[in-house]
């Protein structure tokens, strides 16, 4: 009763003191909520690519870590022939897309544009989905006979051609003239990959004419049914070991990694979780700054109210009464700040989800109970910890000294 009245009597100061806690708690709530929303968005996008995709990457990796190629290490063990062998020999395979990727400047007339160059197989459309806007994708003949043909992603088409019709035009990539045979419909960015900022060319053309290499970067295989994925993975692993002359069946000597999309899902989940909690922890740090603000104000308050403390002691307040009074004040101020922070955080999270949804993302508005309880508990703890010293100082004042204080 008494402490709350003091807080109300000093409204402006109480609010400013609370601001640190409000911002800290609000930030924790928003970060956890936005993190969860972004996570669900990424996962749903990955799922939309199909859960019946198997990826093969060069280089070994353990189950939990990322493949070596992600770190930028070039491994040359995987070949185009491996991809073709998988397509030919593994049952239940719908199609196979092999990739050799790079970046290049493409130009048409006076327009230039830096983009991603994807050398791939004719199976791309079957494996990855996507729609042709105009023209056609290249055929398996063109894939093998070093045809200089290109299919443009929507962004590349816009950048190079604007409103002009690109079909049949010649574009220049690394001193080779490619005929544009098709354009892709806009697909957007899915799971960190921008589908529209790409030029697709036949993989052999990419290897021989552009890069001058004979290895490939990745194979993606579409399986006819989700239930056959595990079996196909085992068969692909066995096939590649045979082709690469690896007799060790433990996997320790493998020079490739076979992953299915459910593995990718769980990996993305663990990465985004780590990111989310790391950011939340950073935000929680700001609560400590808020706590120091509270300690500061409480110390000033103790000094200003020295005579009041003296009087309270004179009329019979014990040391513990004074300690409790100031401690309750500090906890009340942080808890109230915490509650306001939660409300503000939830509101901001909601606004972000509304904006994201209006921009066309399938964004979920997620507020976990854990984050609210965590935020409240941390802010009350901050009040307790940072209120303790000023309260102790107040309680130890000698009544005579306190009464004499001017």
């Amino acid at each position, binding site marked *: 009763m008494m402490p709350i009245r003091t807080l109300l009597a000093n409204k402006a100061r109480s609010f400013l003191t609370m601001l640190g806690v409000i911002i800290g708690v609000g930030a924790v709530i928003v970060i956890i909520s936005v993190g969860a929303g972004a996570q669900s968005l990424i996962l749903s996008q990955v799922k939309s690519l199909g859960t019946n995709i198997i990826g093969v990457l060069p280089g070994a990796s353990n189950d939990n870590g990322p493949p070596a190629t992600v770190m930028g290490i070039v491994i040359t063990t995987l070949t185009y022939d491996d991809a073709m062998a998988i397509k030919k020999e593994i049952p239940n395979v719908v199609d196979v897309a092999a990739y050799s990727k790079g970046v290049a400047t493409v130009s048409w007339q006076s327009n230039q544009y830096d983009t991603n160059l994807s050398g791939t197989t004719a199976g791309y459309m079957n494996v990855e989905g996507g729609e042709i806007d105009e023209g056609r994708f290249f055929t398996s003949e063109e894939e093998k006979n070093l045809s200089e043909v290109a299919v443009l992603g929507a962004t590349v088409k816009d950048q190079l051609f604007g409103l002009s019709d690109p079909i049949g035009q010649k574009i220049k990539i690394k001193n080779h003239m490619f005929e544009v045979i098709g354009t892709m419909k806009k697909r957007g960015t899915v799971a960190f990959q921008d589908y529209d900022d790409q030029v697709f060319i036949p993989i052999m053309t990419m290897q021989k004419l552009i890069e001058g290499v004979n290895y490939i970067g990745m194979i993606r295989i579409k399986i006819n049914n989700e239930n056959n994925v595990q079996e196909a993975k085992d068969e692909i692993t066995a096939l590649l070991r045979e082709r690469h002359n690896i007799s060790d069946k433990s996997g320790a000597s493998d020079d490739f990694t076979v992953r299915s999309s459910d593995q990718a899902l769980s990996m993305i989940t663990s990465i985004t979780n780590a990111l989310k909690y790391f950011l939340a922890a950073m935000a929680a740090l700001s609560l400590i700054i808020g706590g120091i603000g509270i300690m500061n104000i409480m110390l000033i308050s103790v000094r200003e109210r020295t005579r009041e403390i003296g009087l309270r002691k*004179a009329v*019979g307040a014990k040391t513990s009464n004074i300690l409790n009074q100031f401690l309750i004040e500090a906890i009340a101020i942080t808890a109230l700040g915490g509650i306001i922070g939660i409300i503000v955080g939830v509101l901001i999270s909601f606004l972000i989800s509304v904006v994201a949804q209006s921009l066309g993302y399938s964004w979920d508005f997620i507020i976990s109970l854990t984050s609210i309880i965590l935020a409240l508990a941390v802010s009350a703890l901050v009040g307790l910890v940072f209120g303790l010293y000023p309260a102790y100082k107040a309680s130890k004042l000698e009544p005579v000294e306190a009464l004499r204080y001017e």
Partner: protein
Amino acid sequence: MPGLIQVNNLSKTYDSEGVKTTALSGVSFNIEKGEFVAIMGPSGSGKSTLMHILGLLDRASEGEYFFEGKNVVELSDDELAVLRNESIGFVFQAFNLLPRTTVLENVKLPLFYSKDKKDIDGRSRKVLESVGLGHRLNFFSNQISGGEKQRVAIARALVNEPSVIFADEPTGNLDSKSGIQVMEILQNLNDHGNTIILVTHETQTAEYSKRILRIMDGKIVNDERVERRRLAGDGDLLK
């Protein structure tokens, strides 16, 4: 039957950065229930120090002090707080009311720290009415006059029915008319059996009491009955 206050050879020295200052040296006296005593002396004489020790706000360096028969030296800080709450009322020169708080809430304050929490509101209203402030209950402490403030302070001192009231220069911040009103209330309380200990440097104010302890340089120099006592209630000399 022990007296209310028994003091034997009481001394107080302050040690400030190695320099010793003696505020009280070897003070002895008794005060019985129902007395109205003025402790009088010039500033620096030690009268405030004496009042603080008698009021259990401070501890003596040496000597014995029995309050209501209890040896104060042996009591813990919390036990002293309970005694201050239940047996002692203070009236200070600067009123010491809580700011931004109503008159009624100010008077309730000692009862929040009391074991006896029944009818806090009723008891506080009653004692405020007895000092003539029944019409000021919900005024804030900064909205009333100085004389009224001191009457609130007296009500606060009275609310837990203490054995003794210490009044430290209670008229020091008041005009003479308000001062007389305050003294009248203290005399009335004494007439009804309350023990009053008044601290002042003015002879005129001290003459409202029945007994004057004169203090100088930390020693009691005179302890005498007041022969011609001033009465604040009717026809005062100051009027």
